């Protein structure tokens, strides 16, 4: 009898969790998003070099229109590849554990994630438009951190720790303009990989 009640309670808990949170998110998504950012960041470093600037030495960098547009497209490619990896591992995990993907929890999670991201994206485009390139990397970190914290209610709540880390890193980097690329690699590359590995181990 006791056994049955215990199972009942476990069932109730799992049903509440399954139906209100998006739990198909795999830690591997984080790892591969981080790797994409890491490779992209290293490529950008090389790009500066090939344009005659050593990112770590030269304080004053010249941003030609060509370079800006190239950086912009690299950013888009990193975003798309991280996104595709995310979708791939989500589908894989949900198939493995027989979890539904497109539920109302998923939609709520995406909406709450997208809101700060879209506002942040427009904010960054405006920064580029006005030529404040040094503020772009800190802003991407800050808005991304806020987006994760905002989406926390609808997925694994551990994601808020990643959100807070990105947010704090972004705020610090506001005071170290000129080192944006390094903070960006640290935030989007290293933090993602660390978080992804921790999550992968925890929820395997």
């Amino acid at each position, binding site marked *: 009898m006791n056994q049955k009640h215990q199972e009942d309670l476990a069932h109730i808990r799992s*049903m*509440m969790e399954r139906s*209100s949170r998006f739990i198909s998110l795999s830690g591997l998504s984080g790892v591969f998003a981080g790797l994409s950012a890491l490779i992209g960041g290293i490529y950008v470093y090389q790009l500066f070099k090939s344009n005659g600037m050593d990112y770590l030495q030269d304080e004053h960098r010249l941003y030609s229109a060509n370079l800006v547009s190239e950086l912009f497209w690299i950013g888009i490619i990193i975003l798309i590849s991280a996104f595709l990896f995310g979708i791939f591992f989500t589908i894989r995990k949900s198939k493995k554990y027989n979890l539904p993907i497109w539920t109302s929890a998923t939609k709520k999670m995406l909406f709450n994630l997208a809101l700060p991201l879209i506002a942040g994206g427009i904010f960054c485009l405006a920064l580029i438009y006005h030529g404040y390139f040094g503020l772009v990397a800190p802003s991407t970190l800050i808005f991304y951190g806020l987006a994760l914290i905002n989406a926390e209610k609808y997925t694994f709540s551990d994601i808020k720790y990643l959100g807070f880390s990105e947010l704090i890193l972004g705020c610090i980097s506001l005071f170290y303009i000129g080192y944006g690329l390094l903070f960006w690699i640290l935030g989007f590359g290293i933090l993602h990989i660390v978080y992804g590995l921790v999550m992968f181990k925890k929820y395997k």
Partner: protein
Amino acid sequence: MGIIDKLNKDFESRVRLGIMSVLMVNDWVDFTEMKTLLNITDGNLASHSSALEKAAYIEVKKEFVGKKPKTSYQVTDLGRAAFKEHLSYLEKLMKS
């Protein structure tokens, strides 16, 4: 052992527990989503949901989206109270 008698008979089945659990933490949930969440058949969900509706624990809404009929469920105030009571009895039982 009066406490066992107090357990709500309407919530004895796993499927009904599942339906109530999902509705406790969501607003309207439609038939298809409920079915996939609980991993049960159409007939199974239909019979258990109508039993819960009869007890006035859930509200059933039937509407047409285009030409397709769509059924959605929502928990009633009575259902919410009954389920909470059931939960606290279960928890008390676990402690004793």
